[in-house]
């Protein structure tokens, strides 16, 4: 490694050297530039490694042989070296990326690039205010030059706007520096920090001006119109530099200034950052141009880092970890995305669909989006975790809330974009991707995953990339070229093996969930053997990611691992759902609701942490004892709402129908039968640890009872009016989950038993129904029930599955659904809340309506002409259904097999309450008894007697065809007009249709519309006029001045 001054001297020297070359020696010039950048990158890397690994002490570099504060000095420490590495690596890659442009423009352009690097290095290294000013100005000028490199004529205007604004900034900065000097007698940053009392006695304004100038460099809202124009029109490689490197350098400048300032300024910084973060993400919602969107996103991310800078006082030792995590994630992702944008020909977001031609680029894109969003295992995840915990510990909840809200806005446009990429038509223009540009993107991808690993290592919690299930899921990325059947086999094998490995460690509750997730998941995977002739790119990594998350979730012992698993399964399932044909909008709403829920969970854990970085989940129990006031209640509320988004409780349910209905045939059972259990598991965990909680005197479990009950009612009612079979099942899931939530919320032994019964039952019959309906839909080519009918003879096995399924769902004896109902009644006997029960009662029989509709309109009634030649659903789709039928029968006969142990286990938590007695063939409770096997026998005997007799009597019955029906002495003409199916429950709609008013949908739609319209309206504030931007800037200065005056 070479002395720190080399970062300035070497690049400057190289720039001057370039000036001496002939114009025509372009290769030489390019070579010198690359060599310089490569050398400095290596140097920065060595230093970083030195500081990080070998434990070097930060070094001071004195110039002019004179100690500071009299001469300029530089400091090189871990932060600085890391940023230098970032700057140089970005510049190096951009230089490679810009090869053609640079070769065309010649050595001058290269020297501008080198000087930019040097200026950024200067900003990072210097400890002198005026020196900082000089380097800032150099950056401005160099940027102004590089903006000109763009082919886009509009860049000229953008560059000029940039210069106008820079002029104003430099005026402020200069005046500020001089008055600060006058007040303190020194111009050294550290010196001034020592004298800060002096500074703020007389020189408050001086510091204010400096502060404003540096903040303005960070493009705060509203003084950032110019930056967006620059991002939109500059060459993407250069935008990458501005976003990643210049942003990072400006941030460290601000950090240095904050060293001088007191705590008041920290909060101000945070507020400015927060406003920027919110505004940029809000405006991003209305963007269709990719680069401008990236611009908004960059501005927003920098705002977020600014927010974090302002929280220095509470972050303590984690400060660098958090800032670094967010900043580096932003830098890598944004640089990567800008580089990709150079490969995409069209400028609309949907033109990015071209990425589908190159799976590797697509993967890079997905990684970058995840990196930006701070999804695990990327650094932003660890950083946000720490940040949120710190904010919660310091009681800065409003900041926390607004930050998470803005993150959700960001998720809104990022995932919408991702949806475009996956689902939109391929644009006419293909990707332009020469190898060197692609390599650059791939290097960014490598950097992204490397960062993920490093941050995992640095994290005080566990490194997610050491988790076996996650690695197994990621391994499928590598295995993508294999044929699908092999991957399927591997997936099943992996899950079964993992179950066998973890089996001994499970407690009974985990065993039930684990069994459903891993073994149940494997059974559903059997259906994936169908159509495994194709490779199904992307299916297995996504599915395995979801299963990895799920299997980690149930064994998580502390809040961190729990949340990480939660995020993993969310992301995995999002990818899965997105695979459906028309699923783009539904997948988006799924991920938004899920992330919203996840943020609430995060906030809840953070509040519960009480300053600790993570807590064992069991510790949630102590919360109400340890803290005064309503904290425990709030934690409970946040976590519960988070989990309830996954169970699609009413109000948060609108994502579910579309997501489940549009998913692929074998995905629907996964996301319905298995994924929904994640929410239930969360609730189980929550209630098991925290128990009943109150908030402002309101019993929260009581509220949950209501939510569960209303979900059951609304879910069932909406299912009644669906024409689409899979949507019907999806709404039915909402109702079923409502029952389960209700059971859990009852907070007694039997309520929990019922919920678990629902967990098992719902998995079995919903998977089965989704599979058989999916199989039918595959054969008939439609999911609309009124277009089917009379399939019973053609698809008998599917019919049997549905028949058994609906008997089980409706809770009619003798099948297992009845067990759930029986336990339910026993549970409510000992419950003191009666009103929500009324709703549950109302919901119960409604299930009959949609179930009957399901079986009637598909399998009974009139067969359609075009379906006369249909075959039974494919073998691999029918096979799991038959397994489920067998399961259902066994579970109906001997429910004790699965439930006895859980019963004992749950008994520990509800000591003294009523429980069940499993002795003999009869299950007894305090109130009644239930004997599954005798019931089955009695009903079986009666049934078979009658059936055989009827068969015997009618042994000579004439088998007739579909139109041999009495038709008022006429006869039907077409099956379509004879099959009664559409608007099946019209009278019911007349009577109770008012309950199905899409109020919730309307609410969320209004909300999103409002946000979009607000974004559309407010962004007009960026008029495109450079002078207006300067006015914004002045306005911002004055406003902050008044704000700061007011705060002090």
């Amino acid at each position, binding site marked *: 490694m070479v002395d720190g001054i080399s970062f300035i001297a070497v690049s400057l020297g190289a720039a001057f050297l370039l000036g001496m070359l002939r114009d025509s020696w372009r290769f030489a010039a390019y070579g010198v530039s690359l060599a310089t950048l490569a050398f400095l990158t290596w140097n920065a890397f060595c230093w970083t490694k030195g500081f990080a690994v070998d434990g070097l002490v930060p070094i001071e570099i004195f110039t002019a042989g004179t100690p500071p504060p009299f001469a300029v000095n530089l400091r090189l420490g871990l932060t600085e070296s890391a940023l230098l590495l970032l700057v140089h690596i970005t510049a190096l890659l951009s230089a490679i990326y810009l090869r053609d442009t640079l070769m065309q423009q010649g050595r001058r352009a290269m020297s501008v690039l080198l000087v930019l690097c040097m200026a950024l290095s200067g900003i990072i290294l210097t400890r002198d205010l005026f020196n900082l000013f000089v380097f800032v100005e150099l950056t401005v000028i160099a940027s102004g030059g590089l903006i000109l490199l763009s082919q886009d004529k509009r860049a000229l205007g953008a560059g000029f706007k940039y210069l106008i604004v820079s002029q104003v900034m*430099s005026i402020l900065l200069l005046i500020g520096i001089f008055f600060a000097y006058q007040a303190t007698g020194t111009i050294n940053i550290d010196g001034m920090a020592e004298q800060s009392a002096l500074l703020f006695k007389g020189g408050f304004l001086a510091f204010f001006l400096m502060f404003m100038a540096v903040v303005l460099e960070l493009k705060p809202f509203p003084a950032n119109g110019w930056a967006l124009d620059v991002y939109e029109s500059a060459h993407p490689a250069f935008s990458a530099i501005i976003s990643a490197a210049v942003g990072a350098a400006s941030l460290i400048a601000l950090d240095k200034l904050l060293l001088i300032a007191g705590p008041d300024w920290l909060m101000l910084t945070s507020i400015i950052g927060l406003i920027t973060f919110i505004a940029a993400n809000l405006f991003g919602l209305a963007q269709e141009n990719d680069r401008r969107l990236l611009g908004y996103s960059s501005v927003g991310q920098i705002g977020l880092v600014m927010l974090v800078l302002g929280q220095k006082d509470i972050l303590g030792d984690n400060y660098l970890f958090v800032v670094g995590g967010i900043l580096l994630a932003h830098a890598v992702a944004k640089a990567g995305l800008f580089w990709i944008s150079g490969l995409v020909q069209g400028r609309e977001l949907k033109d990015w669909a071209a990425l589908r031609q190159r799976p590797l680029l697509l993967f890079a894109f997905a990684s970058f989006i995840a990196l930006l969003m701070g999804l695990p295992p990327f650094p932003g995840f660890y950083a946000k975790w720490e940040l949120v915990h710190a904010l919660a510990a310091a009681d800065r909840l409003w900041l926390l809330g607004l930050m998470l809200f803005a993150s959700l806005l960001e998720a809104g446009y990022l995932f919408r974009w991702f949806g475009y990429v996956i689902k939109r038509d391929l644009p006419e223009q293909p990707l332009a991707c020469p190898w060197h540009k692609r390599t650059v993107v791939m290097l960014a991808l490598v950097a992204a995953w490397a960062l993920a690993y490093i941050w995992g290592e640095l994290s005080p919690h566990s490194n997610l990339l050491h988790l076996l299930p996650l690695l197994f899921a990621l391994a499928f990325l590598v295995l993508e070229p294999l044929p699908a059947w092999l991957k399927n086999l591997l997936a099943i094998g992996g899950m079964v093996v993992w179950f066998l490995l973890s089996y001994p460690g499970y407690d009974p509750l985990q065993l039930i969930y684990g069994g459903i997730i891993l073994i149940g998941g494997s059974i559903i995977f059997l259906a994936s053997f169908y159509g495994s002739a194709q490779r199904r790119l992307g299916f297995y990594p996504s599915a395995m990611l979801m299963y990895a998350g799920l299997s980690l979730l149930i064994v998580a012992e502390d809040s961190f691992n729990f949340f990480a698993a939660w995020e993993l399964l969310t992301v995995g399932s999002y990818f899965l759902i997105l695979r459906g044909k028309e699923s783009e909008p539904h997948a988006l709403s799924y991920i938004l609701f899920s992330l919203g829920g996840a943020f609430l969970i995060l906030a809840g854990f953070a509040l519960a942490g009480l300053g600790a970085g993570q807590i064992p989940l069991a510790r949630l129990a102590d919360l109400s004892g340890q803290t005064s006031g309503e904290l425990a209640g709030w934690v409970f509320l946040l976590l519960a709402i988070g989990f309830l988004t996954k169970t699609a409780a009413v109000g948060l349910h609108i994502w579910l129908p579309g997501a489940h209905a549009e998913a692929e045939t074998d995905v629907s059972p996964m996301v319905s039968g298995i994924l929904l259990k994640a929410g239930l598991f969360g609730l189980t965990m929550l209630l098991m640890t925290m128990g009943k909680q109150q908030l402002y005197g309101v019993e929260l479990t009581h509220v949950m009872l209501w939510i569960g009950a209303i979900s059951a009612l609304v879910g069932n009612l909406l299912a009644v009016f669906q024409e689409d079979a899979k949507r019907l099942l999806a709404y039915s899931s909402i109702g079923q989950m409502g029952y389960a939530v209700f059971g859990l919320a009852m907070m007694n032994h039997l309520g929990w038993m019922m919920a678990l019964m629902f967990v098992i039952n719902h998995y079995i019959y919903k998977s089965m129904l989704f599979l058989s309906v999916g199989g039918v839909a595959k054969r008939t080519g439609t999911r609309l029930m009124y277009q089917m009918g009379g399939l019973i003879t053609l698809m008998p096995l599917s019919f049997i599955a549905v028949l058994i399924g609906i008997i089980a769902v409706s809770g009619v004896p003798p099948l297992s659904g009845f067990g759930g109902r029986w336990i339910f009644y026993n549970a409510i006997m000992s419950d003191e809340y009666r009103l929500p029960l009324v709703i549950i009662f109302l919901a119960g029989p409604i299930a009959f309506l949609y179930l009957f509709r399901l079986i009637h309109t598909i399998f009974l009634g009139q067969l359609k002409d075009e379906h006369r030649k249909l075959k039974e659903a494919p073998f691999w789709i029918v096979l799991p259904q038959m397994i489920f039928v067998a399961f259902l029968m066994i579970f109906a006969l001997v429910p004790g097999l699965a439930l006895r142990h859980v019963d004992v286990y749950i008994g520990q938590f509800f000591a003294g309450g009523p429980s069940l007695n499993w002795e003999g063939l009869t299950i007894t409770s305090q109130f009644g008894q239930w004997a599954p096997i005798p019931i089955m026998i009695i009903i079986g005997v009666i049934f078979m007697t009658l059936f055989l007799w009827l068969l015997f009597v009618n042994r000579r019955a004439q088998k007739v065809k579909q139109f041999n029906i009495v038709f008022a002495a006429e006869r039907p003409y077409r099956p379509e007009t004879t099959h009664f199916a559409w608007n099946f429950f019209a009278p019911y709609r007349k009577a109770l249709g008012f309950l199905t008013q899409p109020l919730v949908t309307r609410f969320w739609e209004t909300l999103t519309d409002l946000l979009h319209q607000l974004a559309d309206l407010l962004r007009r504030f960026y008029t495109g006029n450079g002078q207006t931007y300067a006015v914004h800037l002045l306005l911002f200065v004055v406003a902050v001045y008044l704000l700061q005056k007011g705060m002090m």
Partner: protein
Amino acid sequence: MAQIAMATGFILILIGLYGALTNRNLLRMIIGFTIAHSGVNLVLVAVGYLSGRTAPILDSAVPMAEAAERIIDPLPQALVLTAIVIGVGVTALMLAYAYRIYVTKGTLDIGKCRELKW
């Protein structure tokens, strides 16, 4: 004395900015910024001024031993020089931009450079 210079400097800054922000012609804007810069430099020099003292050059009039009592603050002087040069650089860059804009668009009106917005 210093206050008068400083006040003048501030007024110049405001005048310059007013000019730069209200004139739509690029060249006029540049001139506005130049005026503002002059104002800034004036303010800067005024900050370092100590009344009744002389320039920070050691010669027979200012012997080395008395320097601390006789000269004004040399640092602002030095820094202002840098500031001036940087101002010149930025101005030149803006001029180059103005030239390019004129060549490509045929206008010097900032109001016409509004393809990028929202």
